[in-house]
Every structure is written in structure tokens, then in C-alpha cells.
């Protein structure tokens, strides 16, 4: 039988090579070898994708690499999750995030990068896409039992809808239920403070740090 070390190496290289099929196959091999799924995620996939995230930040790899690596990890983790569910367990993630670009705004890349980086760092991310209606953010957060609502706006005219989501949360008595982070070219810390968001992230790296800080504190 293949050793755990060899299986973890296969899992790792499947991420580095952006290979969804290889990631799923390596995950199945880990299960067949009797490895613990949670440990397999950490030892096989997580390190590799974190390193790719860092390489992306240094511009040694680019967005397509990060997206493909995140997709490969998703394919591998899905296999392990299925095994966990079969035994009545769930894979513990750092947190669940619903993410999207606000209503009236069709800019996609910024929030895609944030989503890929959050996934690479152990978050479950539900990408709602672009031009997301205000009510949809809240509905999705409820459906996915999210801890975080993340909203991007690239235009100074559409950032207004970030405010509306927060106002709607307050009106629905959901104030404080979700951590809300805002970002995008015209968005600033002052705007985040003004509308009552929990935080502002200038880029994907800051978003990860911010969420790690929040959800780490909650865990303590």
C-alpha cells in the first residue's frame, strides 16, 4: 500500500499542477488507505494552495493559476467531504463566506480574486456573481449559514448598495449576525465606518487577514 507521505505528495502536486481529476483521485486514494479526511485536507491540499496564494501575491503565478488551483482543491475536498458526511461528520472550515459584486456593477475580477484567495486559505466561499441584488446577499447568507458577507463595488456610484445591504440587515433585525466586509476601487475605511460595515479590505490578502482575525477571535 502507498504510504501516507506518498499520497499527500500526490495531493500536493495535483494542486500545483491545477489538476482536478488528479486531486479527486488522490483524495480517493487517501480514503482507501484509511487516512483521516480532515488530516488529508491539511497535509495534502492546504499547504500547497496556501503556497500558491503566496506566490500569487508575489506575482509569481497569475489569476488563472490561482483559480485552477482552487478548483482542483474543490474537486479533491468534495471527495473527502462526501466520506465525512457518510460518517455523519463535516469538514471544519475557517468560515463560510457569501461574496459578490453589488447591484448595478458588473465588475467580476476583484471579487473572483478575493474568492479564490479565501478558498485557498480554508474558507468555504459562495460566489454570488456580479450585479447581485441587495436582498440576495442576505438571503444567500441565511441559506448558506454564512458568518461573513463580502461585497465588492468598483464604481463610486454603485458602492451605495453596500450601504443598503447593511441598512437592510438592521431593518430585518439581523444587525450583528453577519460580519460584513466591503472592498473595491472607490471604497475606503471611512466608507466602511460610515455605513457600519465590520471591515474594509483593500485587496485579497487583506481580506484573508481580516477574516482570519475575526474568525480567530470568535473561536477564542
Amino acid at each position: 500500500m502507498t504510504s501516507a507521505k506518498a499520497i499527500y505528495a500526490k495531493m500536493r502536486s495535483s494542486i500545483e499542477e491545477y489538476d482536478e481529476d488528479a486531486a479527486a483521485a488522490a483524495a480517493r486514494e487517501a480514503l482507501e488507505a484509511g487516512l483521516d479526511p480532515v488530516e488529508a485536507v491539511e497535509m495534502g491540499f492546504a499547504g500547497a494552495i496556501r503556497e500558491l496564494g503566496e506566490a500569487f501575491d508575489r506575482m509569481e503565478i497569475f489569476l488563472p493559476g490561482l483559480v485552477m488551483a482552487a478548483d482542483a482543491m474543490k474537486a479533491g475536498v468534495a471527495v473527502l467531504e462526501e466520506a465525512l458526511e457518510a460518517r455523519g461528520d463535516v469538514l471544519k472550515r475557517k468560515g463560510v463566506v457569501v461574496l459578490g459584486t453589488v447591484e448595478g456593477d458588473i465588475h467580476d475580477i476583484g471579487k473572483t480574486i478575493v474568492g479564490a484567495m479565501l478558498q485557498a486559505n480554508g474558507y468555504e466561499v459562495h460566489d454570488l456573481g456580479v450585479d447581485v441584488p441587495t436582498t440576495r446577499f442576505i438571503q444567500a447568507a441565511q441559506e448558506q449559514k454564512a458568518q461573513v458577507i463580502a461585497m465588492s463595488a468598483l464604481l463610486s456610484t454603485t458602492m451605495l448598495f453596500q450601504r443598503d445591504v447593511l441598512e437592510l440587515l438592521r431593518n430585518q433585525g439581523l444587525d450583528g449576525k453577519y460580519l460584513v466586509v466591503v472592498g473595491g476601487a472607490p471604497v475606503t475605511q471611512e466608507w466602511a465606518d460610515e455605513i457600519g460595515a465590520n471591515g474594509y479590505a483593500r485587496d485579497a490578502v487583506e481580506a484573508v487577514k481580516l477574516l482570519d482575525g475575526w474568525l480567530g477571535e470568535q473561536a477564542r
Partner: protein
Amino acid sequence: MNLKEVAKRAETGPLMEASNFVMKRVAANVPRLQKEYNIRWDGQTLLNLDDDLADRCWAAGKDLLLKTGVYSMNSRRVIEFAAEEIEDVLRFVPSRVPLGMGKDAVTVHHRKVEDPRPPFIFGGPFNADVHEDMFVKLNEAFAQERIIDCLLFPGYLKELDGLAIRPGSGLSSRAAILYGQWSREAVRRAGRPGMPICGHAVMALNEIACTSEEWGLRATDPRAMVLISELQVDDVTMSRTAYYQAYGCPIYMAFTPLVGGYGGGPDGTAIVAVASFVAAIMLGGEIVHIGPQHIKYKQQTNNHSLFLGSLANQAVARNSHIIGTTSHTTAGRPGSDQYAYEFSALALAAVTSGSNMTGPRPAEPLGFNDVSPLMARLFAEVGHAATRLTRQQAAAVVEKLYEKYRDKLTFEDAPIGQPFEQLYDLDTLSPTPAHQSLYEEVKEELLRLGVPLS
């Protein structure tokens, strides 16, 4: 190829998810084309001097557009083009477009690499947030700078009557109408009633409400559309193009290729940029604006964007008669010398590479009215001076300028500067003595560094 055909293909082209389009059509093809055409950045060059590289980049960019087409975001279909259709549009795209009217009429034209003719200057608030109380004064101050050929994007009216403006709302229609009225009033006050105004009021269909021959933006005023990165277009842009084209307005089409995004590094993204230049004219653009974005930086004066812009502009200038213009956004803000050093570096690279000029503006304005008409004058003067330089000469100055600001390109490190109302006497609309001194000191330094300012 015309808008009717483009609109038809947006309804009938291959159906696919946006993620598949950018990953399978754009991201998958760029590395192959980079290899096939040998498009590489050496990691050092700020201003491309290699004509053969520019020509290969042109060929690679056209090839990329053939493989990708343009994605219609709302119908989720790909607008595909045949090679002969692209060549046909390239043959007939105008090399000169008249703008404005009467004694204030001007012509924007295609430029060649190291073209001795002065670049066309699109200058103005460049979509900085502008407060309603300051709108006319600020635009008048830009319009009174005679070296500016066309008033550029008179500013986002973010608030009106004390309310934030929601795109598409009744309030935003009222804002669009006032935008037209106040922009026209500003150029009238400056004594240039027929000065062209490049309009881009809000990213919503109702911005067309700014149009009126009597009091607003006219058929002789160019209207700006923005493609979404990479190689994507939405219904609002298509609809605005259809309306403005029918009305007779010149179409100013912008695109913003992302370094570090689906095109990869600056070399791969230069291929995407060339493809986008061509895509813009396929969709009806007559003046095409390149505004590179960057995964780490928000300004366009970093080393990657300088190289990418110079390469893509040269590719287009050498191989077509597309009228190109380059966006200039900076980390430093008005009221700081860094602002001028940054836009000067980019202007020298862009103008010697065959581009016209759009800007300048801080990439991250600090609040309302964060622009300076006096700095726009200097920007234009540097652009005119650049016509007296070869690329080689300009490259030497660009390197010296880049050294001055390279360590201060982040939001935190860049100088804060001051907004318009602190840089100008609002009664006389003239620069404050301190701002005038800054202009003169920076000009002296630019001369010392080798910019042949007159």
C-alpha cells in the same frame, strides 16, 4: 461589421458561462500565443524599443481576438469575428475624428511611433468624484487651460440635493441632466462654448439624459463606453453605443486590461490589450482608450503598466490607424511633486509610443474634487515636449523619473496632496501661489532631467 451585426451575434453566438470564457478562451490562449509569437518582458524595460516585438504583439493580439471573440455578459453568448471581418473594420476605422463645434472644433488623430505631431489632450476631472457646488468652477478651470483639447469626464456627481445617487434612479437621471447643463456652462464660462466634452456621466443607461444640442452634451461630443476585463461587454454599454452612434456622437471606447489577471504578466497582458484595442473598434469605438489595471497597484505608472502600455500602443500605432489614447492615473495626488513625476513618466512613454493622452488623475482620490487643472496643463506640456524625443531618449528620462517614485507607489506611501479647492483661489480660478510654485519647481526639475519643455 456594424452594430446591427454585433447585436445579432450577441443573441446568437455560442452560449457559455463567463468563467469558461475567461479561463478557456482568454487565459488558455494567452500563454500559447506568447510562446508562438515570442512575446516576453525582460523584467527591466519600462519603454519598449523593439519594433519587431511590437509587430509580433500586434499579430498575437489579433490572433487572440479571433480565438476569443467578445463575451456578451447579459446574453452569456460570445460575439465571434472572422479574420476578414477584422481586417475589413481595420481598413475603414477612421484615422481622424472631428470633435466640438464652431471655432472650438478640433480633430483627434491617429499617431505613429515617435510622431512629431502633438498628441491630442483629453483633460479634466476624469471621473473623480466632484461635489455639485464645485462642478462648474472645477470644469471651468480645466476648460480655461487652452492646451487641453477636449474636456474629459467632467466628474462623478455622487451626491445631489444631499442624497447619494443610485444608478438608474430618477435622481440619477436628474444628475445626468445637470451634468450636461453644468459641463456646457463650464466651457461657455471659459470662452470655449464649442469645446468638446467627453461624456461619461454614470454607468447606467439613463446617462443619455445629459444629451441636448441646446444645453447639454451634443452630437459633436465624444461619449465614453467601457469594456469589462477581459474582452467582455454588457447590455448597457451596447445600448449606449447604439444610441450615441445613431445620434452622431464619436464613440470613445475604453478598456482596462489587468496585469496579473487572466492575461498573466505584463507581456501576456499586452497581447490582451492589443486584442482589446481591436475589439473596441469591432464594437463601434472610434477613439480607443487603454487604461491598464494591476493586481497589486491601482495606478498606471508602475513598471509593468509602463511596459505593457508602451508595447501595446506601439503595436497598434505601427500596424493600424486606430486612434489610441492612454489613461494616466497615479499614486501621488495633486499638490505633490510625485503626481507630476508619475504622469510625466507615463506621458513620455505613451506619446513616443504613438498614443494620445487622457488624464491625469490620482488612482485613489481622497474625497471630492481631488484633481488640479494646473497639473493637467503640465501634463499636456510634457506630452507636447515628448514629440521632440525619440523613444530611446524618452526611455532614459522615464527611468530617472521612475526611480523618483518607485518606492512610493502604494496608497499608504504616496503623498496625500490637496484637493482643487485648496490648490486654487476659487474667486479668480487661478492657482494659489504655493501651487504655482510647485508647478514651476517641478517643471524646472523635468527640464533638468531631460524633458524638452518650452
